[in-house]
């Protein structure tokens, strides 16, 4: 039994076999079905045949390379086959098959893991680069063992915890989601794609585990605790029992939350809060509605772009928006215009920017590429004839940007009208408050827009000058920092003075601890990962607006983020400890 600590990004407990994605779809079954000496003998023979094939392959590669490039490189592959033929390693594998009813592939995976751990323990560069080679050798051997008959990721028949270095949007798009009960990755932070995806699917996830892909062998039983950010490899019986019981309690609590689906998000003294969902793809909408979302408060349209589709056309945009509108059947849809750049995909060769988060991203990039911007806007307006939509402009830092965007929008509207295209020319245009300058000068922006949506992920990062994916400074990323609360308060107050709508669509909206102060500050709409909606609703239905306002007053007297956090956590604990 081994414990690994990472960053919990999606709560809940998963208990299942590990499936390691980097094995290129090789699924490892740990134990043989048959017992007895004959089955054991067959398994050893299967291993020996696989080994022979892998060595043959290495030698063939070595010969081919020798012809093409010469000795220096080809001897590397000779070395690889020497490692495969290493007597110690081979004995170890055979021993594992004999003693433990392991399948050949599981024994290989376990034996190689031991080697990799030995190398890793050396902690120097020489071994670090050999590690990759060892991994490559292992993969080749595994492929020969599991071959075409292996159950690949696409043919999963039982639930697995998916383990990968990192998950790219294109990878996650093809995952068999119904078979994956947990995610664990080496890389990533709280705002990584894996985190957002896992949250929206309601699947427990732990990221930032550094070396989980080599700490776990495919087929190992793992417990993943997304709330505590912990992964337990090969848990003992007591631990398994303990976690199964905890999972059961969580499932029961979640069932209780499900019963809230059709009741309003209303405080005890009758104040209604609108709860909406954040999505990346229209196909997430049914699940969001199932969780009780009253609409989509943030549609991240930049996910139309990706390595598989670097240049979506106006028709691609239109198709996505019209399918979203159809799914929503009259509920509102807030489309955020392209937020490309910085940590997100760019539809062109990477341009070098010394500081991409302060560079040409988001609305600034749209102004550089008016063609892309206009294609998207045309699609939005064409879709506006089909149902309620509004436009949300990201990364606005000054009134001039807001005005410039509106003039581009005006051009698009006029072009469409000249072409007699049916549109709703009066849809609401709002702006995001995610740059400190926008929050500080919110009174100016409020006069020129229909609604604000406060994006806390960027607002916190820019206000505190902290990149939370950088582990050296991640501890400084404090949403409860007094400066952040003051900025949110300023933006909300400016919106109220001008009588425009104000919602909050950052991750903060879905964090139980912050729900009370956010509604106390006057946010009447919260948009979040749909999986968070029932919990947030539970919190709202457990307090009065009067109390929420008192809590805000109290927070404004606190001078430190830690103090505020523990104060808020205590308030939530009083409502229901399971919420934390």
């Amino acid at each position, binding site marked *: 039994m081994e414990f690994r600590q990472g960053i919990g990004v999606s709560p809940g407990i998963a208990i299942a076999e590990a499936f390691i994605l980097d094995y290129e779809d090789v699924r490892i079954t740990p134990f043989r079905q048959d017992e007895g000496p004959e089955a054991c003998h067959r398994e050893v023979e299967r291993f020996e045949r696989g080994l022979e094939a892998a060595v043959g392959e290495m030698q063939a590669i070595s010969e081919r390379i020798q012809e093409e490039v010469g000795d220096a490189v080809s001897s590397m592959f000779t*070395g690889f086959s*020497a*490692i495969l033929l290493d*007597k110690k390693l081979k004995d170890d594998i055979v021993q594992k098959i004999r003693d433990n009813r392991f399948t050949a592939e599981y024994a290989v995976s376990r034996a190689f893991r031991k080697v990799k751990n030995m190398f890793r323990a050396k902690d120097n560069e*020489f071994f670090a680069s050999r590690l990759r080679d060892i991994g490559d050798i292992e993969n080749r051997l595994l492929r020969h063992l599991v071959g075409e008959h292996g159950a690949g990721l696409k043919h999963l028949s039982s639930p697995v915890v998916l383990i990968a270095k990192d998950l790219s949007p294109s990878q996650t798009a093809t995952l068999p989601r119904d078979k994956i009960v947990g995610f664990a990755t080496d890389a990533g932070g709280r705002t990584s794609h894996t985190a957002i995806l896992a949250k929206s699917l309601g699947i427990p996830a732990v990221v930032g585990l550094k070396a989980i892909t080599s700490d776990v062998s495919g087929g190992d039983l793992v417990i993943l605790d997304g709330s505590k950010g912990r992964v337990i490899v090969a848990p003992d019986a007591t631990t398994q029992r303990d976690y199964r019981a905890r999972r059961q309690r969580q499932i029961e609590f979640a069932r209780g939350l499900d019963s809230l689906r059709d009741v309003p998000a209303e405080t005890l003294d009758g104040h209604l809060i609108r709860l909406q969902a954040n999505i990346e793809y229209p196909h997430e909408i049914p699940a969001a509605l199932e969780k009780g979302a009253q609409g989509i408060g943030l549609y991240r349209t930049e996910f139309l772009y990706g390595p598989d589709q670097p240049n979506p056309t106006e028709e691609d945009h239109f198709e996505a928006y019209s399918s979203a509108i159809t799914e929503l059947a009259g509920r509102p849809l807030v489309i955020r215009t392209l937020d490309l750049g910085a940590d997100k995909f760019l539809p062109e060769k990477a341009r070098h920017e010394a500081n991409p988060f302060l560079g040409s991203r988001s609305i600034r990039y749209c102004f550089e590429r008016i063609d892309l911007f206009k294609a998207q806007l045309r699609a939005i307006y064409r879709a506006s004839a089909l149902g309620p939509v509004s436009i949300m402009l990201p990364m606005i830092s000054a009134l001039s940007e807001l005005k410039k965007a509106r003039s581009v929008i005006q051009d698009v509207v006029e072009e469409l009208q000249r072409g007699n295209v049916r549109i709703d020319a009066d849809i609401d245009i709002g702006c995001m408050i995610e740059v400190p300058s926008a929050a500080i000068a919110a009174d100016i922006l409020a006069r020129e827009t229909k609604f604000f949506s406060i994006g806390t992920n960027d607002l916190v990062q820019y206000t505190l000058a902290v990149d939370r994916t950088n582990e050296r400074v991640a501890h400084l990323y404090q949403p409860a920092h007094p400066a952040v609360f003051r900025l949110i308060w300023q933006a909300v107050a400016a919106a109220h003075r001008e009588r425009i709508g104000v919602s909050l669509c950052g991750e903060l909206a879905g964090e139980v601890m912050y729900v009370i102060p956010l509604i106390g500050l006057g946010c009447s709409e919260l948009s979040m990962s749909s999986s968070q909606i029932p919990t947030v609703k539970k919190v709202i239905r457990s307090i009065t607006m009067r109390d929420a306002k008192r809590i805000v007053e109290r927070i404004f007297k606190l001078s430190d983020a830690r103090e505020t956090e523990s104060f808020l956590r205590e308030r939530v604990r009083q409502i229901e400890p399971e919420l934390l």
Partner: protein
Amino acid sequence: MSEVTKTVVLGNKYGLHVRPATMLAQAAARFQSELSISKDGVEVDGKSVLEMISLGAECGSELIIRAEGDDAAEAVASLEELVKSRFHEEE
């Protein structure tokens, strides 16, 4: 049956990486004797590439070659020769 040991200094540029370890293991496999290589008190099987690499021996490391068996003397001489030839590496 005899036991022979010999201390050598690793002189090739990149140390005991995959290729030299493979050469040592291949040479060792030709002898009946049990062969081991040790560095800083850590002794590993001279017929196992993986174990030899795991020594992390760099250029300038002192290695002790030890053989036990009927052909121990020849085995040690053969491995010593390989180390001294710097595994025919080009500089």
